[in-house]
């Protein structure tokens, strides 16, 4: 059965595309950030999945001969999570200042405010 083995990848693609779609389709800046976070998070799952060794445990010190998952993707994703948090923080900070400057966080209303 192929599906159980690849189910994580299907989930990753589904989350990735959902997030991407939200970023593109919504005009609300906070919702855009939600979509963007979802999009980034799917990549975390992708990395963790590919580091999984069948039957392996978590890569923590254990008896010799124990099979464990590849720890490198975990470390990379730890870095990527920090990057993701920083991006969300900067994005949210910008949204607060946009709200102060324009009085709205809707993309089309901001556009309209600039046209007039």
């Amino acid at each position: 059965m192929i599906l159980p083995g690849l189910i994580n990848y299907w989930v990753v693609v589904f989350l990735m595309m959902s997030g991407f779609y939200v970023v593109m389709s919504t005009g609300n800046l906070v919702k855009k950030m939600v979509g963007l976070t979802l999009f980034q998070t799917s990549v975390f799952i992708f990395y963790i999945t590919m580091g999984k060794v069948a039957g392996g445990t978590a890569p923590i010190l254990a008896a010799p001969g124990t099979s464990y998952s590849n720890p490198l993707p975990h470390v990379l994703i730890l870095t990527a999570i920090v990057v993701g948090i920083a991006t969300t923080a900067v994005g949210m900070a910008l949204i607060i200042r946009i709200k102060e400057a324009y009085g709205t966080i809707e993309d089309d209303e901001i556009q309209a405010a600039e046209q007039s």
Partner: protein
Amino acid sequence: MELINQHLPILQIVVPLIAAPLCIILRRRQLVWVFAVVVTWACLAMAGGLMLQVLSQGPISYHLGGWEPPWGIEYRVDAVNAFILILVSLIGAVVLLYAPASIEAELPEARASLFYTAYLLCFTGLLGMTITGDAFNVFVFLEVSSLSTYALIAMGTDRRALAASFQYLIMGTIGATFFVIGIGLLYMMTGTLNMADMAIRLQPVLATRTVLAAFAFLTVGLSLKLALFPLHLWLPNAYAYAPSVVTSFIAATATKVSVYVFLRFFYGIFGREYAFDTLHLEYFLVPLGLLGVFVASTVAVFQSNLKRLLAYSSIAQVGYMVVGIGLVSVTGLTATLVHLFNHAVMKGALFLALGCIVMRLGTVELGELRGIGKRMPVTMAAFVFGGLSLIGVPLTVGFISKWYLVSAALERGWWPVAVLVLLGSLLAVAYIWKVVETAYFHEPEGKTADATEAPLTLLLPTWILIGATLYFGATATFTAGLARAGAEALMGGLAP
């Protein structure tokens, strides 16, 4: 001294990285500025030292923490990135000389030390992307530079700077995430993150669909970061509403470093045979590059805000670089690399000149700049020289770039490309002439009537870059020689 020489590759990154938070601690604006200037000029000296080492001893491989590659992170300096390091630190150092007077006019006092922190972080990120030999490390530094760029852009006085910064944040993050997906897929197939090791291990598995997917993700992700048409939408507003200093710095360096990473991945890791002989990336790059030149230049002709005009011109100039990449020859890559340097110098100078105008008039709307050439002759002369270089007039650096690009196109037998490159230059004549006509052939009126020349602290850095534009336009042996050495290294690929 020996110890410093040995550790130059890491010092290049660590010095500005540590200096950035120190700027917050120092607080006093003048003090922070002096400190940041010392740091950036020290970085320039280090980049020069690295270049000398590369030229005399060949590529340098520096192992972080003493861990051998491919297990540890390797910083690898060769002819290509030593050249980019010099470029980034040169622009960073010169633009910083210009910063205090300009940010005093454009930023609230409280933000000054934060400005220098973000600036140094952005500087670190760009240098890091250039120097590292580790694929994931590129992503980390890419985000370091991007996040600080968003903060820098948002410091613009106009509220549109905030919207522009947010738009850039969304598109930049999507680009960076695509990039990291591509690296993940490559890691799946090779089990390594070291670029040189990856290039070797990728060869047997090139035919797999996973590598093809990685290729696609990296192409789109990097094209977004380097603002290849039609993925350039974040750029015009970001450049137009950022503070002048920031615009000069990022316009001159950020997209250039992305072009370098693009070269590194497609020529270095995937290799020329796979990327161009098998997948024919050139049929994607050359048309989009040329389309970018024409569409962006045409849009530039109709802009009334000069910063936006130059931003669109930047998209067009990136188009030329991408065409050079797509010509797949030593001459084509020389054209790209030499244009990286040349465009950085001239566009940096042009945006600095606009910063002088912003300082005196508070606007760069073309309609309010009538007769400015008579009131600010030194500034406008700099603009005209920079503009001539954008067009590609002989004795300016722009000519050198166009010369290599046209000869590369003819070498490949693609004469229509050569013709289109030259036609693209005519559009540059149109948008530069529009400015010259307004500045010189009208009597000063309104705001320009009582404008005075910009202070020397602004004019000097502007003219340093204009001087470089003219000097390297007259004697291109230095830049073109380095670019050719880099191009030959790239054509060889990373895999032995």
